[in-house]
């Protein structure tokens, strides 16, 4: 039984002469508790797939079912709450003039949930931040701390699925490690399902069970973690990406 099932997903932007198909007939399934990776080069459509799943992008076609529920481009509040998204840039994903507390309270207000203070404190604890941070503004936090807040905001509605769009690519190695560990812990603790977008094969291999390799809007390969680590991938593009993650390879003169 899969918690996410995507069939024939296609997304295009623009209209008329400028119509551009960005994602072309993509299909995949994700089992509950699984972490599914998406990797590919800039502009290949990773974020777009995520956006369609999250309900952010409306102009898509295909069949998407989330938690056994067929969803369309327009979502109800309850449907929206089932999956939440974490963005790449921790500097742009928090409202610069809202305190952390306000940022975390807002989803609770929207969904009319109770025990608000309690929940805020709980979720801050979950992501490893002291409760005093509620009074701070984003510019007073480090990148890693902000990303934790962003994760906390996603978690506060108790979703089943987290959609992670390059959650660590703007962070330093040391901070990245903290966030990756946190994501692992949360996954265990709350039985979460992840879809993780990254361009770093090492990060994907560290966290994901399976990964879809995307090029120009299509999946060229879906590989397992084992295949990545042991070099058992099929597609040449996947291999290039794997090599790139290892650093610079001087070309023979």
């Amino acid at each position: 039984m899969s918690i996410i099932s995507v069939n024939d997903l296609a997304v295009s932007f623009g209209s008329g002469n400028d119509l551009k198909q960005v994602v072309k007939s993509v299909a995949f399934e994700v089992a509950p508790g699984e972490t599914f990776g998406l990797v590919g080069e800039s502009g290949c459509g990773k974020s777009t797939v995520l956006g369609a799943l999250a309900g952010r992008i409306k102009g898509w076609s295909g069949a998407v079912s989330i938690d056994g529920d067929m969803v369309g481009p327009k979502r109800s509040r309850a449907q929206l709450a089932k999956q939440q998204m974490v963005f790449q840039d921790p500097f742009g994903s928090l409202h610069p003039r809202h305190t952390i507390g306000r940022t975390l309270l807002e989803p609770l207000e929207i969904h009319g949930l109770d025990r608000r203070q309690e929940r805020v404190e709980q979720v801050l604890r979950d992501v490893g931040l002291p409760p005093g941070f509620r009074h701070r503004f984003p510019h007073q936090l480090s990148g890693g701390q902000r990303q934790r807040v962003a994760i906390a905001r996603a978690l506060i509605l108790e979703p089943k699925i987290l959609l992670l769009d390059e959650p660590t690519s703007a962070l330093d190695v040391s901070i990245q490690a903290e966030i990756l560990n946190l994501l692992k812990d949360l996954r265990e603790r709350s039985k979460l399902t992840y879809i993780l977008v990254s361009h770093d094969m090492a990060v994907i291999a560290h966290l994901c069970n399976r990964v879809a390799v995307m090029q120009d809007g299509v999946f060229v390969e879906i590989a397992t973690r084992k295949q990545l680590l042991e070099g058992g991938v099929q597609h040449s593009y996947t291999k290039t990406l794997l090599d790139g993650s290892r650093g610079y390879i001087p070309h023979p003169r």
Partner: protein
Amino acid sequence: MPEQSKPILSVKNMSVQFPTLSGVVNAVKNVRFDVGREKVGIIGESGSGKSTTGRAIMRLQPDTARVVADEMRFEDVDLLAASEADMRAIRGSRISMILQDPKYSLNPVMTVGEQIAETVILHERLGKKAARERTLAMLERVNIRDPQRVFNLYPHEVSGGMGQRIMISMMLISSPSLIIADEPTSALDVTVRQQVLSILDDLITERNIGLIFISHDLNLVKSFCDRVIIMYAGRIVETIDAARLDEATHPYTRGLLEALPSLDHPRDRLEVLKRQASWAEA
């Protein structure tokens, strides 16, 4: 070759300070390093002072910044004593700088050819025509296939990889002896990165010049550079041969290495850096 071993750049006890509302920020503290005809990487976490160091060498720090040092010598020039006019003559002709993102680092309303040619017109007093010739040759050198056409393109009409190659031609056209590259490839895709780096690598080797390569990608610095300087909180905590980076001893460097997820040595949990106050004082 004794000439070879003599450092091109020698920096002794350089500090950079920014006065701010809440006091003076010491962005760089007493750093000391030499650069010869080699590729020196500078790594460190964000805010550790890498870019500030690079800019201070070219005296391109913001107006508010204060740079002090015991010595800053570039070849035969005392950078501390040089006038602004001296510096202008040095910049672009003897020391060049490659910036991170070609999208923003090129003037959007000038053709790329014009921007490259400007360097030689300025420093070598070449005529328009000669400058154009030189530019076309340089473009060819960085593996651009149709230089005539590219010469007349505007920055928004070229891809990221091509843009970075244009940036490289612009900065290398006057044959500088030192290049400072501040994260030259972090805006590029993995595949493009390879191409750009190999062009840079070739040019450096071919011309036998020095490179300061600023990056926060450990794997990249390890595989690309000859020597690595590791910075933490404005200080150099360690300098080590790139090949021996894995054997680094400083706990900060070790921490960085262990925090890195790796395809070759998968780990279930990553080590988290435990910062110590003493690193910042060392």
